[in-house]
């Protein structure tokens, strides 16, 4: 231990400038990140520069610090003075690990904790959440950088190798995404963690080989094998995505009663008038929206449509095309009868092929069944107010239409999908007409609900928001004149837990693809 601390102290004294650079970058990050929720909702989008800066500076400072500390006792070459000194290799590795923990992980955790604190969230409330966060930080940054540093002789070489790795990674992931043809699924892929585990295991093996034996050739081969395995795993995951979604969402007939019934809405023969294309920036795709009636959801339950798959059969044999699973617009359905617009995407080539023909359209929806569980009541405030088990919301922008209540929750312990309801109160505003009866507001708070890119989970707080429109018994009101969401109003937060997943299908013969809107 004495030798470990001795090397650690030496490195700390020697690289204080690099340490200071990282601490400064992390401080900048901790100071700037809260702007994501401290500004008005309109201004939030303009804060990207504030975020971009630390998001470039922090990894760059980590990169520099790791390179410097590992190359201080370079493991590559035969001229290093330390090779013939009484260094114990295990202790050298331990000293570098202590350094990285002390000067990279600890400041990072402190910065994250400061951000959580600033957000009004307890850093200790979801202690176990730190482990996956640090695992992702290790897999996406620290361990690969350390492994590359251990296989290179200096910063310049390391930079070259790193660029090579980045190019291979971008190439690999681009290659992996080709089979999906731009159809992105919203279904969380827990198997992505396999790639993380492959990277962590490979990087650890490289470090072990280098520190134990200094066999650069062997370590390099392991690194290349790891990169190939990680890319291969990513490609395999992409290639098997369709079948794995099918497995994850078995057909409703296989699971018994469908949690929701669906039917095309609109005219009985051709309802092209009700469906429409959506203008898009993408030239190679056409987005089509069709009205669908959802009903039959059990009381106390809800369903969410995660992905949509469309199959089109033309009038002649061989005219058949099926899209991959694709994340459509967010659709959540409560008990009752609800008309929703389901969106699907077509390749332009297929759209041109089928647009003038009557086709049979099959839509398959990947549906998650949700069950209402815990119910929390919070009191609306003009400032920040905490919601037990959910996070912190703010009532600073209630004057907007619809009323906006930004909420934020901890990435360390994501709350489940939550439904929020409250009631508007009448004001005595002259000339304002408010329908009789209660005026309610309901919204899904999807803060942190969706899986995102893994590296984004490094951000400790993910802001979301509630848009609360006034609803009367006659439908949604077009303005909030004569109404207010007054501080002191109770707000109910109902959490929904996942109880199952299934596919539901609907089919429409003689469907005419809508003409394209220009």
């Amino acid at each position, binding site marked *: 231990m*004495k*030798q470990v601390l*001795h090397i650690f102290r*030496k490195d700390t004294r*020697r690289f204080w400038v690099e340490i200071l650079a990282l601490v400064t970058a992390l401080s900048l990050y901790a100071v700037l990140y809260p702007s994501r929720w401290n500004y008005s909702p309109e201004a939030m989008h303009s804060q990207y520069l504030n975020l971009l800066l630390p998001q470039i500076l922090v990894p760059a400072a980590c990169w520099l610090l790791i390179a410097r500390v590992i190359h*201080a006792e370079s493991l590559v*070459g*035969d*001229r*290093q*003075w*330390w*090779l*013939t*000194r*009484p*260094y*114990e*290799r295990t202790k050298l590795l331990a000293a570098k690990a202590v350094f990285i923990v002390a000067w990279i992980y600890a400041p990072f955790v402190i910065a994250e904790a400061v951000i959580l604190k600033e957000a009004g969230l307890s850093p200790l409330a979801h202690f176990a959440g730190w482990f996956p966060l640090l695992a992702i930080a290790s897999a996406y940054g620290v361990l690969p950088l350390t492994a590359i540093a251990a296989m290179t002789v200096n910063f310049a070489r390391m930079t070259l190798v790193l660029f090579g790795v980045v190019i291979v990674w971008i190439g690999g992931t681009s290659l992996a995404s080709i089979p999906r043809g731009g159809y992105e699924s919203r279904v969380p892929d827990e198997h992505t963690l396999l790639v993380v585990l492959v990277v962590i295991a490979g990087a650890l093996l490289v470090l072990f080989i280098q520190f134990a034996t200094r066999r650069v050739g062997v370590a390099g081969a392991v690194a290349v094998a790891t990169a190939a395995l990680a890319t291969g795993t990513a490609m395999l995951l992409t290639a098997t995505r369709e079948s794995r979604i099918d497995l994850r969402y078995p057909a409703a007939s296989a699971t018994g009663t469908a949690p929701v019934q669906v039917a095309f809405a609109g005219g009985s023969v051709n309802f092209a008038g009700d469906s429409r294309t959506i203008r898009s920036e993408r030239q190679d795709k056409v987005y089509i929206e069709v009205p669908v009636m959802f009903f039959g959801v059990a009381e106390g339950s809800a369903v969410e449509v995660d992905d949509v798959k469309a199959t089109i059969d033309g009038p002649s044999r061989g005219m058949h095309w099926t899209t991959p699973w694709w994340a459509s617009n967010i659709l959540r359905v409560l008990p009752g009868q609800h008309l929703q617009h389901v969106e699907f995407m077509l390749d332009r080539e297929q759209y041109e092929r089928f647009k003038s023909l009557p086709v049979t359209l099959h839509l398959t929806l990947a549906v998650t069944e949700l069950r209402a569980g815990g119910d929390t009541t919070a009191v609306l405030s003009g400032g920040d107010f905490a919601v037990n088990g959910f996070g912190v919301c703010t009532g600073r922008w209630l004057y907007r239409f619809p009323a906006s209540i930004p909420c934020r929750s901890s990435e360390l312990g994501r709350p489940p999908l939550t439904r929020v309801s409250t009631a508007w109160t009448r004001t005595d505003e002259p000339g304002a007409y408010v329908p009789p009866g209660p005026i309610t507001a309901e919204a899904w708070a999807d803060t942190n609900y969706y899986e995102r890119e893994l590296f984004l989970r490094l951000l400790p707080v993910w802001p979301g928001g509630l848009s609360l429109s006034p609803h009367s018994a006659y439908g949604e009101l077009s303005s909030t004149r004569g109404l207010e969401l007054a501080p002191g109003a109770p707000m109910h937060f109902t959490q929904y837990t996942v109880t199952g997943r299934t596919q539901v299908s609907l089919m429409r013969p003689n469907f005419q693809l809508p003409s394209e809107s220009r």
Partner: protein
Amino acid sequence: MINAVIRTEGLRKSFGRTEVLRGIELAVPEGSIYALVGANGAGKTTMIKVLMNILRPSGGRSEVLGWDSGALTGERFCEIGYVSENQELPDAMKVGEMLDYVRAFYPRWDCALERELVRQFDLPLDRRLKHLSRGMRMKAAFASSMAYRPKLMVLDEPLAGLDPLVRDELIEGILERATETTIFLSSHDLSEIESFASHVGYMEDGRVLFSDEMGALGERFREVTITMDGTARLPDEMPPGWLLGEAGDAVLRFVHSAYRGEASGRELRERFPAARSIEAEPMPLRAIFLAMAKSGRRQRKMQPPQSSEKEKVKA
């Protein structure tokens, strides 16, 4: 059997297809100042790096202080001091910082000796190593490798490129430690080696061609001049141990590398009964080294090239 601090048996090292060490057999006696000499590219540095476990051998075995050199790591280096001409030092450190830093690694670090070495080498403790001259850097490396009184000092070309004053200071430093330390050094600076080495080994083309005590070596090598009455002629086949034979009008000259005093004198007289005079002069180390080197080159030229060399020739 001598008590050897370094012993190698059939030690081989290749870099790809290039064989740099070709079965080295070597024993460095305890307490000796052993100088390994050889031309540039002979394989001296590679052998030392294999001995120090910096490079991995391709075959054979080597022991240092009784340990397999492949197992030399960690605290075993408390017994070994290693200084090399091309060694990278922690340049960002000041001399004093480096000494402070390495001190903690050695349980037997002698602070008084450290102070003495600093004074003797006139080391500027508050200057960074990267700002020092080559000689000063070598002296700093020496000081940091001597202050723990290692049992073995391994020095790879320690005197190369140094000015005479620094050389003298370093040699003086080496000699002062020689009573308690075995010193193994490589060099092609023969004049200095000759003045203080007790043993010498000659390395050429990846092999140690001879390894002997300095005195015995001086006895063994003789520059032989034979003056004949008539025309001098070398034997068609040179006897083993005769190097660089050349014949003038009435004079034969060669280097005898296995001279055994009076016995060899008798053999020469029997071989050349018509000789007017036979002189066998002792040779300085430099002359021995040159003779060996020239002889080696001559032999290589006469040998048919090996397959890879043939390819090179074709290319």
